[in-house]
């Protein structure tokens, strides 16, 4: 198609469109029924743009558009497209949403769905690590075009293809090499992947010797169904790794006959060393692994108590520790995976600490999300790492009473950092203090530590073991939103009541914060609810939100009695219920018209409906709500003030007169005493005289 005509079509696209349509509409009139039937069979092809139509615009090298703030070229190289594997297709074959559209199309086209032709690959991809990441909205995850390109896709066999055997390592390496966002921010336990591969026997063969049959990334990981090794369907899962390697290394078991009966690899993949245990992934060397990395080899050095690392740490490994541990069947090199058997000291290639996530991938992901993990990622040495809680060689299962993570040991374990004065407590800026002593005195702490109930809630029961987050984090198990569910894992029946109650977000829609379990029961000082302390505090607890009503309660008999430390009186929950509180207008409420008398009768047997009219939150300070109480109170107060005023004035006026009387009395007494003195003398003489004759 001549260029000049292209431009003409482009410039007069609208008029052309009209011309086409008019021609189309004239067809049935001009031709016979046969022609009419043809127009019915291919009505769209008549209206769809051809590749030429598209290229009329898209062959312009300067054609661009703005997408997400960036300038993107819309140029399609006609030559490259023509020579690509899709060269024989029309643009609309892939850009299916162009069909039936007028040109130029005003809206951007939808993303091409390769799966409409490459169904199997698309299905595999959707299930793969990459596909799932894309579905999650992970911006770093690759789509078809990222590996295959778009208009210039070449057959895999073509050495120029981006997915040609020789190019695959570099294609994958775009993301999977040190320093890329993928390698630093995603949980990938392998290090220096591209570098190690290119130095490995596979890498050398492929890249230096041009052996395109040598294994590249896709040979082991597959091209489209890439899965983490923890996925049992993955080509590199422990169970499948032997099958993957033997795709190329047929009859390899013959070579390994000395050490292992080859057929067992696939039958007992869990108990036998897998290929990668000796031949490290990405680092496979062209050597005979005559020495191997059996534990005995490690122990040649590490049995020595005086073996010290460069920074002075003891490098002694006690065989008994490992033998008694949960990892008794795990070889040294399975954890210390960076060892290299080709060295005299296989461990000299170790550059990173043991990464437990190689096996415990899910736990690793949780840890990464947790506060501990985030701090660790930032290089904070305060942050605990796996071994800080689980130990290293003597790691024990959480069901072993000697384990640091056995329920009764958990509080002490967490206390190492979270006790007041310890590093975590020093960093902490929230409101929870004295966590450990409070927990120890709490019902959970006593249940666990005094009664030895291992099912009792420990730190990890609420905060989780690996994914602990601050309460402010919406994903945290102790975030107010999640607290009922967290407590409900044990207290399920209570949770069922609570979610139906007025305090549940399900029932009450409000901007104010609604209480959850810990608002009434506290977080770490949870008490038995049948103990006096809890019973006496509950009114203040409810009063934190229901201030006025609690204050009025303390003005009534029930409130005053409880203030004196007496618990056998009606407290908030005795009438309103504890977890099943409803509005009093709700028929389910304990205080609804139908239930209130029965509620009073719990304590006041014989109570009547009239009795229930007692005002349990009455105050005499509110003339509008309780006028009779208000006026009674002020009437009584007036009586008091009146009486005291009158009698007070009476007394004050009396006082000086009474004083005067006292003075006069004393004066009279003094006179009398004087007289007494004289007569006393006479009297004593008389007495003497009296006595004498007897």
């Amino acid at each position, binding site marked *: 198609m001549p260029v000049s005509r292209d431009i003409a079509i482009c410039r007069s696209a609208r008029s052309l469109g009209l011309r086409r349509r008019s021609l189309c509409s004239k067809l049935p009139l001009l031709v016979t029924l046969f022609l009419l039937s043809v127009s019915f069979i291919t009505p769209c092809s008549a209206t769809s743009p051809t590749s030429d139509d598209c290229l009329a615009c898209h062959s312009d090298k300067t054609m661009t558009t703005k997408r997400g703030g960036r300038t993107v070229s819309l140029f399609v190289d006609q030559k490259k497209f023509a020579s690509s594997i899709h060269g024989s297709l029309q643009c609309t074959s892939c850009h299916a949403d162009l069909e039936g559209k007028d040109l130029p199309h005003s809206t951007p086209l939808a993303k091409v769905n390769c799966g409409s032709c490459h169904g199997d690959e698309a299905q595999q991809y959707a299930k793969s690590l990459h596909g799932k990441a894309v579905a999650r909205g992970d911006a770093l995850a690759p789509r078809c075009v990222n590996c295959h390109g778009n208009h210039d896709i070449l057959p895999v066999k073509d050495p120029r293809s981006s997915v040609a055997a020789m190019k695959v390592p570099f294609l994958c390496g775009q993301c999977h090499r040190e320093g890329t966002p993928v390698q630093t921010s995603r949980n990938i336990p392998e290090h220096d992947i591209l570098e190690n591969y290119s130095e490995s026997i596979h890498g050398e063969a492929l890249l230096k010797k041009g052996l395109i049959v040598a294994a590249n990334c896709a040979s082991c990981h597959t091209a489209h169904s890439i899965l983490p090794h923890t996925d049992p369907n993955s080509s590199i899962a422990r169970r499948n790794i032997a099958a993957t390697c033997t795709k190329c290394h047929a009859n390899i078991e013959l070579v390994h006959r000395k050490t292992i009966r080859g057929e067992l690899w696939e039958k007992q993949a869990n108990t036998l060393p897998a290929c990668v245990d000796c031949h490290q992934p990405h680092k496979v060397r062209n050597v005979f692994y005559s020495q191997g990395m059996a534990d005995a080899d490690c122990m040649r050095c590490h049995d020595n108590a005086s073996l010290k690392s460069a920074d002075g740490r003891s490098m002694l490994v006690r065989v008994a520790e490992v033998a008694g541990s949960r990892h008794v069947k795990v070889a040294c090199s399975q954890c210390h995976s960076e060892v290299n058997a080709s060295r005299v000291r296989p461990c000299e290639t170790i550059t990173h600490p043991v990464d437990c996530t190689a096996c415990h991938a899910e736990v690793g992901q949780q840890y990464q999300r947790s506060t501990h993990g985030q701090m660790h990622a930032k290089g904070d040495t305060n942050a605990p790492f796996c071994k800080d809680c689980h130990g290293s060689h003597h790691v024990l299962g959480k069901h072993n009473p000697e384990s640091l993570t056995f329920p009764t040991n958990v509080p002490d374990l967490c206390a190492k950092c979270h006790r007041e004065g310890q590093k975590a407590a020093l960093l902490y800026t929230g409101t929870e203090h004295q966590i450990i002593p409070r927990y120890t005195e709490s019902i959970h702490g006593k249940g666990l530590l005094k009664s030895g109930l291992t099912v009792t809630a420990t730190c990890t029961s609420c905060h989780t073991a690996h994914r602990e987050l601050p309460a402010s984090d919406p994903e945290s198990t102790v975030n107010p939103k999640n607290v009922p569910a967290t407590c409900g894992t044990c207290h399920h029946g209570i949770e069922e009541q609570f979610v139906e109650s007025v305090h549940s977000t399900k029932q009450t829609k409000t901007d104010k914060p609604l209480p959850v379990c810990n608002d009434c029961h506290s977080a770490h000082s949870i008490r038995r609810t049948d103990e006096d302390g809890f019973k006496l505090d509950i009114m203040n607890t409810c009063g934190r939100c229901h201030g006025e009503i609690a204050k009025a309660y303390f003005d009534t008999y029930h409130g005053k009695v409880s*203030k004196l430390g007496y618990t056998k009186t009606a407290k908030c929950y005795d009438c309103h219920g504890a977890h099943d509180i409803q509005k009093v207008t709700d028929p389910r409420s304990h205080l609804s018209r139908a239930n209130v008398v029965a509620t009073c009768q719990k304590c*006041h047997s014989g109570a009547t409906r009239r009795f229930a*009219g007692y005002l349990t939150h009455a105050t005499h300070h509110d003339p509008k709500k309780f006028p009779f109480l208000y006026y*009674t109170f002020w009437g009584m107060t007036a*009586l*008091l003030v009146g009486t005291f005023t009158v*009698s007070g004035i009476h007394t004050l006026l009396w006082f000086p*007169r009474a004083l005067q009387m006292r003075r006069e009395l004393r004066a009279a007494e003094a006179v009398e005493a004087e007289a007494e003195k004289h007569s006393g003398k006479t009297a004593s003489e008389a007495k003497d005289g*009296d006595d004498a004759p007897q």
Partner: protein
Amino acid sequence: MPHSEPQLATTVNDDAGAVTAHEAPLAEVGSKVIRVVDRREFVRFAHLYRVLHACMIVSFLTLAVTGLSLKFSYTPWAAKFSRLLGGFETAGYVHRFAAIVMFGTFTAHVIGLFKQKRRNQATWKAVLFGPNTLLPTKRDGQEFVGTMKWFVGRGPRPEYGRWTYWEKFDYFAVFWGIVVIGSTGLTLWFPVFFTRFLPGSFINVATIIHSDEALLATGFIFTVHFFNTHLRPEKFPMDTTIFTGHMPLAELKRDKPREYAALVASGELEQHLEEPQPAIVVKTIRVFAWIALGTGFIVVVWILYAMLFAYR
């Protein structure tokens, strides 16, 4: 001890009262003249009333302390006191027991009045409107005015009779108090019964009346009554008449001149004279009275603290 024979004494007994100065004529023994002192005292209160007053003190103080601990439950003292009693429940039982004692006292007093009337073979008219009536009379009004004048230095101290107007006020204050506090107290004691015919909110009203009237009663007794009868400078520190039942004649002459004059005029004075109480009785009475007085003062301090400094 026979009343007719005045006992001769050579010294002034200072145990039985401040002054025992009812002087008998001088007697001659031999050739020497000595002073003979009649130690007999005027009997103001019969045995029954002394006992009733003591019962009143015990029950009233008990009711006050246990009741106020509930009224002022917001003060830390209240909670401590409640704990001292072995919990609020015990305090409640004590309160109700004391209430029964007070009701009993009240009943005994009324019965006593009837008996007294029968014994004296008096008519109701004489009891209610005679010179010794406890009902307010016109003369009380005059004496009140006279007292006011005396207070401000415009006249002499009125010649009070057997019952002064303030004593009558105290007496009827107790009547009123027992009726008001007693009836509301019963309502609070048996709320289920009373709400069969009263609205539930009447319990709230009864609470206010019971509590405030009680405050009035305790406040009045422990300040005004205490001053009028015990702390008045001329009686300070205490007037034991209500406990011993006896009043020195000089005091009768001074305090109730009209009654004294009437007794002398009718010649009945001799009938009302009795030997003083034994020293040990007086001593015991003083200890008891001091405890009661002290408790009252402590309660006043508590009330003032609760009302002025801790009020919520």
